[in-house]
């Protein structure tokens, strides 16, 4: 089966619907029309560019170029994690912790999946490596951002409580334990929920895409299960690592709570 080609004018029809939505939000004074159009425009530009990049990458298929691409993706994800936190650690720590946690979890799980499970030839074949890494990073990024945001926000609000626990002689790990567990849970809940709802409420995007492209549904399902599991593992370990490291950084060597290390939200 051949995938039906899409012409640009056909996309323009979909774009017209987006514009119609923007006009409606304008009439309803939702104050979101401009953001909507800018985001739609960004989708077009960014995806077109990445299309060109991927075309070039697939034709070269050399490890250094793929590694460079992966690095750029990682750094962009790190920036996104930083931007999504209301109060974040200063001095580059928010970016560093987010990026390192994603590197440790998303990268290693992707490489493991490529080499041990899927086994394309060569193992870094970009048709497999780049989409896989993209999905891993996208989800890990969300988990880490949610977890870190929850951690810093909770600690900020519960400062008096945590310090009172320190006054009673508790170790920093105990004093911040509730906030830490809470942050780890909130980072992992979205992916757990999407596993629970997969196939019933939502048809996952990758599976839909494969079926559209002509893959048999049973193979698409196997791939989707693999992806769900690896995403869950990557998100879970990434969130654990990020929240652990960040909570350590919130205390100094004397086990004092150091909220002066957090940057207040701009505005």
């Amino acid at each position, binding site marked *: 089966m051949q995938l039906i080609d899409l012409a640009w004018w056909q996309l323009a029809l979909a774009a017209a619907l987006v514009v119609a939505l923007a006009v409606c939000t304008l009439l309803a004074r939702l104050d979101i029309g401009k953001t909507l159009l800018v985001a739609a425009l960004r989708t077009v530009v960014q995806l077109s560019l990445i299309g060109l990049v991927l075309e070039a990458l697939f034709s070269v298929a050399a490890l250094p170029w793929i590694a460079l691409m992966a690095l750029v993706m990682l750094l962009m994800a790190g920036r996104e994690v930083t931007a999504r936190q209301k109060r974040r650690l200063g001095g580059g720590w928010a970016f560093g912790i987010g990026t390192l946690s994603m590197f440790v979890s998303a990268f290693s799980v992707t490489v493991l999946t490529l080499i041990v499970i899927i086994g394309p030839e060569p193992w870094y074949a970009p048709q497999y490596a780049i989409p896989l890494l993209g999905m891993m990073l996208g989800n890990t990024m969300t988990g880490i951002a949610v977890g870190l945001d929850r951690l810093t926000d909770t600690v900020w609000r519960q400062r*008096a409580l945590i310090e009172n626990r320190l*006054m009673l*002689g508790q170790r920093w790990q105990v004093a911040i334990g509730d906030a830490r567990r809470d942050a780890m849970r909130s980072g992992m809940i979205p992916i757990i929920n999407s596993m629970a709802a997969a196939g019933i409420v939502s048809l996952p995007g990758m599976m839909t895409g494969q079926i559209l492209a002509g893959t048999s549904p049973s193979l698409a399902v196997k791939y989707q299960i693999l992806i769900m599991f690896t995403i869950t593992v990557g998100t879970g370990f990434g969130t654990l690592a990020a929240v652990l490291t960040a909570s350590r950084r919130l205390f100094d060597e004397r*086990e*004092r709570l150091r909220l002066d290390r957090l940057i207040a939200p701009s505005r």
Partner: protein
Amino acid sequence: MKPVPASTTEPDGAAGLLVQALRVGELSAVDFSVAPGHILALSGPSGSGKSRLLRALADLDPHEGSVCLGDLRQDGVPGHRWRQAVMMVPADSQWWGDTVGEHFPDGAPEDLDALGFEQDAMDWQVSRLSSGEKQRLALLRSVAHRPRALLLDEPTANLDPVATARVEAWLGDLIKRHRWPVLWVAHDPAQISRMADAHLRIAGQRLEEAPCS
């Protein structure tokens, strides 16, 4: 204030608190000592840094200078061990569990009734405590963690005269019995004259000695 040797731990485990060249916030060159079993009252206008001084002694804020409890040096042990020994009781106590009992390490303390509580107080919901009950229970909770010195930030601020008298009698007896050195932030001159062995007042950037009565 009469000079007291405070740098060694006595055989019964009692030790004095020795503070040298402490700098925190506006306060600088803070030197004083509290002998075992003595109460040093600390007063000063609000915002003058009384709580910050206590927080520095408990090592909750970065500061300069040295603090010792007998042989124990503040920078010689991990933070949690220091704070377990030199325990600060804040004016506004915080509770993380649902019931009072969860906050006590070894079950119900013996002296619940000394502060006017029944034994079932351990099953009370924290969310239903009055501010006065919280304050008295916070004192009990701190003592239950077996400190060796106390830093009390206005321990009777939310209490009526009857409860204040009760807390003073209980604390005074406990401090004499365990020979803890105590720093007591107080506003009421009458309370200072009842409880304190010495009195320091914050005046600008330094501490000055003041009469107890």
